[in-house]
Protein backbone atom coordinates (compact mmCIF):
# COMPACT_ATOMS: atom_id res chain seq x y z
CA UNK A 1 0.00 0.00 0.00
CA UNK A 2 1.25 3.53 -0.70
CA UNK A 3 2.33 6.22 1.69
CA UNK A 4 -1.03 7.98 1.57
CA UNK A 5 -1.95 11.16 -0.27
CA UNK A 6 0.42 13.57 -2.01
CA UNK A 7 -0.09 16.86 -3.83
CA UNK A 8 1.99 19.26 -5.93
CA UNK A 9 1.11 22.62 -7.50
CA UNK A 10 2.98 24.90 -9.91
CA UNK A 11 2.61 28.47 -11.10
CA UNK A 12 4.80 28.35 -14.17
CA UNK A 13 8.37 27.46 -15.07
CA UNK A 14 10.90 30.16 -15.74
CA UNK A 15 11.19 33.17 -13.51
CA UNK A 16 12.98 36.46 -14.06
CA UNK A 17 16.13 36.10 -11.92
CA UNK A 18 15.55 39.62 -10.65
CA UNK A 19 11.95 39.13 -9.62
CA UNK A 20 11.43 41.38 -6.59
CA UNK A 21 11.37 39.81 -3.12
CA UNK A 22 7.88 41.18 -2.66
CA UNK A 23 6.57 39.36 -5.75
CA UNK A 24 8.41 36.20 -4.77
CA UNK A 25 6.70 36.38 -1.38
CA UNK A 26 3.27 36.92 -2.96
CA UNK A 27 3.83 33.90 -5.20
CA UNK A 28 4.88 31.70 -2.27
CA UNK A 29 1.85 32.79 -0.25
CA UNK A 30 -0.48 31.79 -3.08
CA UNK A 31 1.27 28.43 -3.54
CA UNK A 32 1.03 27.79 0.23
CA UNK A 33 -2.65 28.77 0.28
CA UNK A 34 -3.37 26.39 -2.62
CA UNK A 35 -1.43 23.55 -1.01
CA UNK A 36 -3.38 23.99 2.24
CA UNK A 37 -6.65 24.10 0.29
CA UNK A 38 -5.74 20.79 -1.34
CA UNK A 39 -4.48 19.22 1.89
CA UNK A 40 -7.68 19.95 3.79
CA UNK A 41 -9.72 18.58 0.86
CA UNK A 42 -7.62 15.38 0.89
CA UNK A 43 -8.05 15.08 4.65
CA UNK A 44 -11.80 15.31 4.05
CA UNK A 45 -11.39 12.39 1.63
CA UNK A 46 -12.23 14.31 -1.54
CA UNK A 47 -11.15 12.38 -4.65
CA UNK A 48 -8.01 13.35 -6.57
CA UNK A 49 -10.00 14.67 -9.54
CA UNK A 50 -12.07 16.95 -7.28
CA UNK A 51 -8.93 18.25 -5.53
CA UNK A 52 -7.02 19.14 -8.71
CA UNK A 53 -10.04 21.02 -10.06
CA UNK A 54 -10.52 22.86 -6.75
CA UNK A 55 -6.85 23.93 -6.56
CA UNK A 56 -6.50 25.00 -10.20
CA UNK A 57 -9.69 27.08 -9.88
CA UNK A 58 -8.03 28.94 -7.02
CA UNK A 59 -4.91 29.51 -9.12
CA UNK A 60 -7.03 30.74 -12.08
CA UNK A 61 -8.92 33.18 -9.90
CA UNK A 62 -5.83 34.83 -8.38
CA UNK A 63 -4.11 37.12 -10.94
CA UNK A 64 -0.54 36.35 -9.84
CA UNK A 65 0.12 33.51 -12.29
CA UNK A 66 -0.54 33.18 -16.02
CA UNK A 67 -3.99 31.57 -16.09
CA UNK A 68 -7.57 32.71 -15.78
CA UNK A 69 -7.43 36.24 -14.44
CA UNK A 70 -3.87 37.46 -15.14
CA UNK A 71 -3.54 35.40 -18.34
CA UNK A 72 -0.96 36.32 -20.95
CA UNK A 73 -2.29 38.40 -23.84
CA UNK A 74 -2.41 37.58 -27.54
CA UNK A 75 -0.79 39.83 -30.14
CA UNK A 76 -4.19 41.53 -30.36
CA UNK A 77 -4.27 42.27 -26.62
CA UNK A 78 -7.02 39.74 -25.92
CA UNK A 79 -7.07 36.64 -23.68
CA UNK A 80 -7.45 33.13 -25.09
CA UNK A 81 -7.26 30.54 -22.32
CA UNK A 82 -6.89 26.77 -22.36
CA UNK A 83 -7.00 24.00 -19.77
CA UNK A 84 -7.14 20.25 -19.38
CA UNK A 85 -7.88 17.72 -16.66
CA UNK A 86 -7.29 13.97 -16.48
CA UNK A 87 -8.49 11.30 -14.05
CA UNK A 88 -5.95 8.48 -13.72
CA UNK A 89 -8.02 5.38 -12.83
CA UNK A 90 -9.91 5.21 -16.13
CA UNK A 91 -7.76 7.79 -17.97
CA UNK A 92 -10.80 9.96 -18.61
CA UNK A 93 -9.89 13.47 -19.76
CA UNK A 94 -11.30 16.80 -20.84
CA UNK A 95 -9.76 19.91 -22.43
CA UNK A 96 -10.72 23.33 -23.77
CA UNK A 97 -8.83 25.92 -25.82
CA UNK A 98 -9.46 29.43 -27.03
CA UNK A 99 -11.96 30.33 -24.32
CA UNK A 100 -12.22 34.06 -23.58
CA UNK A 101 -15.25 34.55 -21.32
CA UNK A 102 -15.25 31.42 -19.12
CA UNK A 103 -14.21 32.41 -15.60
CA UNK A 104 -12.67 29.01 -14.74
CA UNK A 105 -11.50 27.10 -17.83
CA UNK A 106 -10.45 24.04 -15.80
CA UNK A 107 -14.06 23.49 -14.69
CA UNK A 108 -15.25 23.69 -18.29
CA UNK A 109 -12.59 21.09 -19.19
CA UNK A 110 -14.04 18.84 -16.51
CA UNK A 111 -17.54 19.31 -17.91
CA UNK A 112 -16.22 18.32 -21.35
CA UNK A 113 -14.94 15.13 -19.69
CA UNK A 114 -18.15 14.39 -17.82
CA UNK A 115 -20.99 15.93 -19.82
CA UNK A 116 -19.91 15.71 -23.45
CA UNK A 117 -19.14 12.76 -25.75
CA UNK A 118 -15.79 14.38 -26.59
CA UNK A 119 -12.45 15.01 -24.85
CA UNK A 120 -11.61 18.45 -26.31
CA UNK A 121 -13.67 21.49 -27.36
CA UNK A 122 -12.20 24.76 -28.64
CA UNK A 123 -13.08 28.40 -29.40
CA UNK A 124 -16.72 29.03 -30.28
CA UNK A 125 -17.66 25.39 -29.69
CA UNK A 126 -16.23 25.55 -26.18
CA UNK A 127 -17.97 28.88 -25.51
CA UNK A 128 -21.33 27.49 -26.74
CA UNK A 129 -20.87 24.42 -24.52
CA UNK A 130 -20.08 26.71 -21.56
CA UNK A 131 -23.34 28.63 -22.10
CA UNK A 132 -25.24 25.36 -22.42
CA UNK A 133 -23.72 24.07 -19.15
CA UNK A 134 -24.40 27.33 -17.35
CA UNK A 135 -20.83 27.90 -16.13
CA UNK A 136 -19.89 31.36 -14.84
CA UNK A 137 -18.95 33.65 -17.75
CA UNK A 138 -17.42 37.13 -17.56
CA UNK A 139 -16.29 39.84 -19.95
CA UNK A 140 -12.85 39.30 -21.52
CA UNK A 141 -11.67 42.45 -19.76
CA UNK A 142 -11.95 40.63 -16.40
CA UNK A 143 -8.88 38.56 -17.32
CA UNK A 144 -6.70 41.49 -18.43
CA UNK A 145 -4.37 43.07 -15.86
CA UNK A 146 -2.37 46.27 -16.16
CA UNK A 147 0.86 44.34 -15.61
CA UNK A 148 0.15 42.21 -18.64
CA UNK A 149 -0.83 45.15 -20.84
CA UNK A 150 2.62 46.56 -20.00
CA UNK A 151 4.30 43.20 -20.66
CA UNK A 152 2.60 42.93 -24.06
CA UNK A 153 3.83 46.39 -25.01
CA UNK A 154 7.40 45.40 -24.11
CA UNK A 155 7.09 42.08 -25.95
CA UNK A 156 5.95 43.91 -29.08
CA UNK A 157 8.79 46.43 -28.81
CA UNK A 158 11.19 43.48 -28.52
CA UNK A 159 9.44 41.63 -31.34
CA UNK A 160 9.36 38.69 -28.96
CA UNK A 161 6.90 36.12 -27.75
CA UNK A 162 7.39 36.06 -24.03
CA UNK A 163 7.60 32.64 -22.45
CA UNK A 164 6.98 32.31 -18.75
CA UNK A 165 10.76 32.17 -18.40
CA UNK A 166 12.10 34.57 -20.98
CA UNK A 167 11.71 38.30 -20.83
CA UNK A 168 12.14 40.73 -23.72
CA UNK A 169 15.49 42.57 -23.65
CA UNK A 170 13.60 45.87 -23.58
CA UNK A 171 13.71 47.24 -20.00
CA UNK A 172 11.12 45.46 -17.95
CA UNK A 173 11.94 46.95 -14.56
CA UNK A 174 12.54 43.48 -13.22
CA UNK A 175 13.87 42.11 -16.46
CA UNK A 176 17.40 40.84 -16.50
CA UNK A 177 17.65 37.76 -18.66
CA UNK A 178 19.31 38.61 -21.98
CA UNK A 179 17.21 36.98 -24.62
CA UNK A 180 19.17 35.39 -27.41
CA UNK A 181 17.54 34.58 -30.75
CA UNK A 182 14.47 32.75 -29.49
CA UNK A 183 13.65 29.59 -31.39
CA UNK A 184 10.20 28.09 -31.19
CA UNK A 185 9.40 24.80 -32.83
CA UNK A 186 12.84 25.08 -34.40
CA UNK A 187 12.08 28.44 -36.06
CA UNK A 188 13.24 31.90 -35.09
CA UNK A 189 10.61 33.92 -33.29
CA UNK A 190 11.31 36.75 -35.71
CA UNK A 191 8.95 35.06 -38.18
CA UNK A 192 6.29 36.60 -35.98
CA UNK A 193 7.83 40.05 -36.49
CA UNK A 194 4.98 41.14 -38.83
CA UNK A 195 2.72 40.86 -35.77
Amino acid at each position, binding site marked *: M*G*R*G*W*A*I*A*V*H*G*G*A*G*VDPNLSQERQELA*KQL*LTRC*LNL*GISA*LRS*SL*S*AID*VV*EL*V*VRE*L*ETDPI*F*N*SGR*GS*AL*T*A*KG*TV*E*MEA*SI*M*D*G*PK*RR*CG*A*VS*GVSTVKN*PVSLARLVMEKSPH*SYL*AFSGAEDFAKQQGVEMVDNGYFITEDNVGM*LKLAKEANA*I*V*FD*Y*RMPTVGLETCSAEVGPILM*NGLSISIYAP*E
Partner: protein
Amino acid sequence: TVGCVVVDNEGRCAAATSTGGLMNKMTGRIGDSPLIGAGTYACDICAVSCTGEGEAIIRGTLARDVAAVMEYKGLGLQDAVDFVVKERLDEGMAGMIAVSKIGEVAYGFNTTGMFRGCATEDGYMEVGIWE
Protein backbone atom coordinates in the same frame (compact mmCIF):
# COMPACT_ATOMS: atom_id res chain seq x y z
CA THR B 1 0.59 28.40 -16.65
CA VAL B 2 -0.66 26.74 -13.45
CA GLY B 3 -1.15 23.09 -12.54
CA CYS B 4 -1.94 20.62 -9.82
CA VAL B 5 -1.31 16.88 -9.47
CA VAL B 6 -2.76 14.74 -6.68
CA VAL B 7 -2.83 11.15 -5.48
CA ASP B 8 -5.61 10.64 -2.92
CA ASN B 9 -6.03 8.25 0.02
CA GLU B 10 -7.18 5.49 -2.32
CA GLY B 11 -4.16 5.77 -4.62
CA ARG B 12 -6.11 7.49 -7.41
CA CYS B 13 -4.07 10.00 -9.44
CA ALA B 14 -5.32 13.12 -11.24
CA ALA B 15 -3.80 16.13 -13.02
CA ALA B 16 -5.05 19.54 -14.17
CA THR B 17 -3.33 22.39 -16.05
CA SER B 18 -4.60 25.85 -17.05
CA THR B 19 -2.98 28.76 -18.87
CA GLY B 20 -3.25 31.99 -20.81
CA GLY B 21 -0.42 30.79 -23.08
CA LEU B 22 2.42 33.03 -24.27
CA MET B 23 2.53 36.83 -24.18
CA ASN B 24 2.15 38.28 -27.72
CA LYS B 25 1.18 34.85 -29.10
CA MET B 26 -0.72 34.62 -32.37
CA THR B 27 -4.46 34.40 -31.92
CA GLY B 28 -5.61 30.82 -32.36
CA ARG B 29 -2.37 29.36 -31.00
CA ILE B 30 -2.77 26.14 -29.02
CA GLY B 31 -0.08 25.31 -26.45
CA ASP B 32 0.75 22.15 -24.51
CA SER B 33 -1.56 22.70 -21.53
CA PRO B 34 -4.79 21.39 -23.10
CA LEU B 35 -3.02 18.55 -24.97
CA ILE B 36 -3.40 15.29 -23.10
CA GLY B 37 -0.05 13.50 -23.04
CA ALA B 38 1.89 16.73 -23.55
CA GLY B 39 1.06 19.24 -20.80
CA THR B 40 -1.23 17.02 -18.75
CA TYR B 41 -1.42 13.27 -18.11
CA ALA B 42 -2.75 10.91 -15.44
CA CYS B 43 -3.05 7.13 -15.32
CA ASP B 44 -2.96 4.43 -12.66
CA ILE B 45 0.78 4.93 -12.16
CA CYS B 46 1.22 8.70 -11.86
CA ALA B 47 -0.10 12.18 -12.69
CA VAL B 48 1.93 14.94 -14.38
CA SER B 49 1.45 18.67 -15.17
CA CYS B 50 3.96 20.59 -17.32
CA THR B 51 4.76 24.26 -17.99
CA GLY B 52 7.20 26.27 -20.11
CA GLU B 53 7.82 26.36 -23.83
CA GLY B 54 4.68 24.71 -25.16
CA GLU B 55 6.04 23.78 -28.57
CA ALA B 56 8.90 21.80 -26.98
CA ILE B 57 6.58 20.08 -24.49
CA ILE B 58 4.25 19.04 -27.32
CA ARG B 59 7.09 17.65 -29.47
CA GLY B 60 8.43 15.75 -26.47
CA THR B 61 5.00 14.43 -25.34
CA LEU B 62 6.49 15.24 -21.97
CA ALA B 63 3.74 14.28 -19.50
CA ARG B 64 3.03 10.89 -21.08
CA ASP B 65 6.76 10.12 -21.27
CA VAL B 66 7.09 10.28 -17.49
CA ALA B 67 4.42 7.56 -17.18
CA ALA B 68 5.97 5.61 -20.06
CA VAL B 69 9.49 5.43 -18.61
CA MET B 70 8.01 4.41 -15.26
CA GLU B 71 5.98 1.70 -16.98
CA TYR B 72 8.53 0.42 -19.50
CA LYS B 73 11.89 1.29 -17.99
CA GLY B 74 10.83 0.71 -14.39
CA LEU B 75 12.12 4.12 -13.26
CA GLY B 76 10.91 5.64 -10.00
CA LEU B 77 8.98 8.91 -10.13
CA GLN B 78 11.84 11.38 -9.55
CA ASP B 79 14.17 9.46 -11.87
CA ALA B 80 11.46 9.48 -14.55
CA VAL B 81 10.97 13.25 -14.20
CA ASP B 82 14.73 13.87 -14.32
CA PHE B 83 15.15 11.59 -17.36
CA VAL B 84 12.37 13.26 -19.34
CA VAL B 85 13.48 16.83 -18.52
CA LYS B 86 17.05 15.92 -19.49
CA GLU B 87 16.44 13.71 -22.54
CA ARG B 88 13.16 14.76 -24.17
CA LEU B 89 13.29 18.57 -24.40
CA ASP B 90 16.03 19.08 -27.06
CA GLU B 91 16.78 22.81 -26.63
CA GLY B 92 13.36 23.46 -25.14
CA MET B 93 12.83 24.93 -21.68
CA ALA B 94 10.18 23.50 -19.38
CA GLY B 95 9.28 22.27 -15.92
CA MET B 96 6.86 19.74 -14.43
CA ILE B 97 5.34 18.41 -11.23
CA ALA B 98 4.29 14.79 -10.67
CA VAL B 99 2.87 12.38 -8.09
CA SER B 100 2.84 8.57 -8.11
CA LYS B 101 0.14 6.18 -6.96
CA ILE B 102 2.28 5.17 -3.95
CA GLY B 103 2.23 8.71 -2.59
CA GLU B 104 5.53 10.09 -3.93
CA VAL B 105 5.86 13.67 -5.21
CA ALA B 106 8.51 15.01 -7.62
CA TYR B 107 9.35 17.97 -9.80
CA GLY B 108 11.99 18.97 -12.32
CA PHE B 109 12.81 21.95 -14.56
CA ASN B 110 15.59 23.26 -16.81
CA THR B 111 14.40 26.86 -16.72
CA THR B 112 15.45 29.67 -14.40
CA GLY B 113 13.29 28.62 -11.48
CA MET B 114 9.75 27.29 -11.26
CA PHE B 115 6.96 28.38 -8.92
CA ARG B 116 6.04 25.16 -7.10
CA GLY B 117 4.76 23.64 -3.89
CA CYS B 118 4.40 20.06 -2.72
CA ALA B 119 3.17 18.14 0.31
CA THR B 120 2.71 14.52 1.41
CA GLU B 121 0.59 12.87 4.09
CA ASP B 122 3.61 12.12 6.30
CA GLY B 123 4.02 15.85 6.89
CA TYR B 124 6.54 16.88 4.21
CA MET B 125 5.78 20.31 2.72
CA GLU B 126 7.87 22.54 0.46
CA VAL B 127 7.18 25.81 -1.39
CA GLY B 128 9.92 27.14 -3.67
CA ILE B 129 10.92 29.14 -6.72
CA TRP B 130 14.62 28.61 -7.39
CA GLU B 131 16.79 25.49 -7.72
